[in-house]
């Protein structure tokens, strides 16, 4: 597979910092698109605002860079009015679960046929490292210089509880798992979320040395501290401190939005 077939070469190199995991996640997306042989004209890649949301600018699909947190609502309009469009949303932790939290849980509730890839770096990178809804309690950010007082969201469990068809978590280091989960998501109907933990050395690592200061140290941290969900289920909460639980959180066959709405159309036409 040649990534250049999918990149807008004149826009490269991308803006992400050295050691940022976002490029690694993007490669997983492109490999999966290539594997499934999707037509580029039938893919819409939609984002909001933030580091992850710069992704659409670099790829040769129908690309839409929307407002902060709102990507899923734009994607909802696209998917409903053109169901054959493969609709992929890329979002960050802040974009998807802070300002866009409402759109996130409701897209899951409706089981809208959208694939959401969340690049979770536990921080607002683009604006200089403010704490996000996934910054762990006590960790440092430019707006939590004495330690974050807030509790973090568990994005995958949130998506699962809100009704998504498929939810999985991987890390940038575990690229093969990421490939696998993205493929499962792309093949599945309904709202599918793949959360990928992505190192942000510039804004997070630099301030929170426990996870490593630079990209390769942070990837190593992911390698050493990831726990598959099957194993995590047997572990005590204190054993799971500072661990990253990865794996498939939910994979269920439930009707997606279109199954329900097509019934609505049928009933409306009978009237």
């Amino acid at each position, binding site marked *: 597979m*040649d*990534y250049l077939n999918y*990149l807008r070469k004149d826009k*490269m*190199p*991308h803006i*992400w*910092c*050295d*050691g*940022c*995991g*976002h*490029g*690694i996640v993007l*490669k997983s997306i492109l490999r999966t698109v290539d594997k499934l042989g999707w037509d580029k004209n039938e893919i819409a890649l939609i984002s909001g605002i933030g580091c992850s949301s710069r992704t659409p600018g670099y790829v040769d699909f129908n690309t839409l860079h929307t407002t902060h947190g709102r990507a899923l609502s734009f994607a909802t309009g696209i998917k409903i009015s053109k169901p054959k469009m493969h609709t992929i949303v890329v979002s960050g932790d802040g974009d998807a679960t802070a300002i866009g939290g409402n759109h996130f849980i409701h897209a899951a509730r409706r089981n809208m046929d959208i694939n959401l890839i969340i690049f979770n770096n536990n921080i607002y990178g683009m604006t200089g490292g403010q704490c996000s809804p996934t910054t762990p309690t006590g960790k440092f950010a430019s707006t939590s210089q004495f330690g974050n007082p807030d509790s973090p969201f568990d994005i995958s469990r949130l998506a699962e509880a809100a009704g998504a068809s498929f939810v999985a978590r991987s890390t*940038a*280091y575990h*690229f*093969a798992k990421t490939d696998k989960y993205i493929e499962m998501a792309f093949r599945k109907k309904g709202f599918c979320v793949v959360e990928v933990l992505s190192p942000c050395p510039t804004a997070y690592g630099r301030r929170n040395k426990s996870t490593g200061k*630079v*990209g*390769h140290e942070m*990837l*190593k941290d992911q390698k050493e501290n990831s726990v598959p969900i099957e194993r995590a289920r047997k572990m005590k909460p204190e054993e799971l401190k500072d661990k990253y639980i990865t794996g498939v959180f939910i994979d269920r066959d439930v009707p997606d939005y279109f199954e329900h709405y097509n019934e609505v159309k049928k009933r409306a036409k009978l009237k």
Partner: protein
Amino acid sequence: MEKKADIAMNLEWCKSCEICVKFCPQKVYEMGKFYPKIIAPEACTGCKICENLCPDFVITITPLKEKKKLETA
């Protein structure tokens, strides 16, 4: 030792994060003054860990088996 894979690097896009240097199981790379350099090309097994982990689309690994297949196809 017989060469098993071609390594191509587009250093114009490289940001010197050293991920390839640190994660290559065969120690193919070493950090140069600015950019990684290939010091042991013959040690490369074509596993593609460096390619998959390179966030900047710099590295392309072509295992020679694959290359032959492509050429004969």
